[in-house]
């Protein structure tokens, strides 16, 4: 079986000051097309895992292969190419450039990856249209609401047709309704085949939207469960306000 993400016996130890084992012998495989949520409290290792899969940091031991690229053996320029072309990032605080328009923000990763400007512009416009943001092309990010900014960030994450979208607490800075809309968008992208790895401390996000929930605790995989979506459950089997006991 070819996994999109293949993590084998990965550990990460930080040695500055006190020695901290952030990840301890983690093995985890994720297939293309999955919507996996990695959940854990702060200090559980989820951010470390995200950074390793993102190619932003290196494992102390073990092996990580994403989209056929062995991140544990790649050199710095290979890692940079990997981050540009194979992964799309959605962050909690959007990380948009405030002196660029919405359209320009979305184009940045495409131009860095060497896409011609005209093509990048056309693809950025198309993505913004799909995400319901066609009317704000020329706005500056600073003038948008949080929910709009995150949708722009999602368009930016998708522009290079990444094999994997990494979402790190994508609703952490949003109100509840905007957060639901952003999650709805990620679910829809996944329905169309996009592999998504969501990292969050929030069980509502993880279990409410992910198909698979991996729980990290103290740097280890504590649980890995596939949830049944759209079970035809009677409301009263889920929430009971009152009535006769079943």
């Amino acid at each position, binding site marked *: 079986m070819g996994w999109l993400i293949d993590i084998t016996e990965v550990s990460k130890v930080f040695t500055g000051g006190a020695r901290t084992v952030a990840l301890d012998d983690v093995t985890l495989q994720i297939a293309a097309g999955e919507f996996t949520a990695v959940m854990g*409290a702060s200090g559980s290792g989820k951010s470390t895992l995200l950074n390793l899969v993102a190619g932003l940091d290196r494992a102390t031991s073990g092996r990580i292969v994403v989209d056929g690229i062995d991140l544990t053996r790649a050199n710095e320029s290979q890692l940079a190419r990997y981050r540009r072309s194979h992964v799309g990032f959605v962050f909690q605080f959007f990380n948009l450039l405030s002196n660029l328009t919405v359209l320009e923000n979305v184009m940045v990763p495409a131009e860095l990856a060497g896409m011609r400007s005209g093509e990048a512009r056309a693809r950025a416009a198309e993505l913004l249209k799909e995400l319901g943001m066609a009317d704000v092309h020329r706005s500056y990010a600073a003038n948008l609401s949080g929910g709009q900014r995150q949708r722009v960030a999602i368009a930016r994450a998708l522009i290079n047709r990444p094999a994997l979208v990494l979402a790190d607490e994508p609703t952490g800075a949003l109100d*509840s309704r905007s957060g639901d809309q952003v999650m*709805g968008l990620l679910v829809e992208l996944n329905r169309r085949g996009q592999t998504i790895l969501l990292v969050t401390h*929030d*069980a*509502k996000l*993880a*279990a*409410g*939207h992910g198909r698979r*929930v991996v*729980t990290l*605790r103290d740097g280890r995989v504590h*649980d890995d*469960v596939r*949830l*049944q*979506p*759209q*079970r035809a*459950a*009677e*409301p*009263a089997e*889920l*929430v*009971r*306000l*009152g*009535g*006769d006991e079943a």
Partner: protein
Amino acid sequence: MYGQGMSLRFGVLGLLAEEPLHGYEVKTRFEEMLGGTWKVNIGSVYQVLQRLERDGLVEATGDRGDRGRQAYRATIAGISGLNEWLEDPDSQPQLLREDFYVRLLLLGRHPNGHLARLLDRQRRVYLQRMRDLADQEKIAREDGRLQVALLFKGGQLHTEAELKFLDAVVDEMGKE
């Protein structure tokens, strides 16, 4: 009288403050209003209607329907009683799941392995429930039923609290 009994009483009174209804109409409207989260017995509805009538909060409209069914409406006293209840904050004791707590208390006296297994299984139940509630919330929103959607959102927030509680139990009792 606390809890369920009171909310059925005032739920019925609230419906009758809108328009006169027969017992069976009260039952179906009540269940509909609550998005299927409360199946109420017709016998309980008639009992509530009788008590509301005895207390002067509703009255029979006088005319019987085609099958001899009696319709009721709220009286002035009923409407003012309803308004008072609606303004009262809820100060009942927190409801906790007694089954789980009693298991927890008993398992706490046994070797850790059992406790860890219970916690893991319970956790999976809550995660699946979270997914089911999120699905139901989505359906309610798509149907334009905001209040029912919020009910399911409330369920998710409570489930989140249960999951956090399990984590707290693990931290304090269940480290393998």
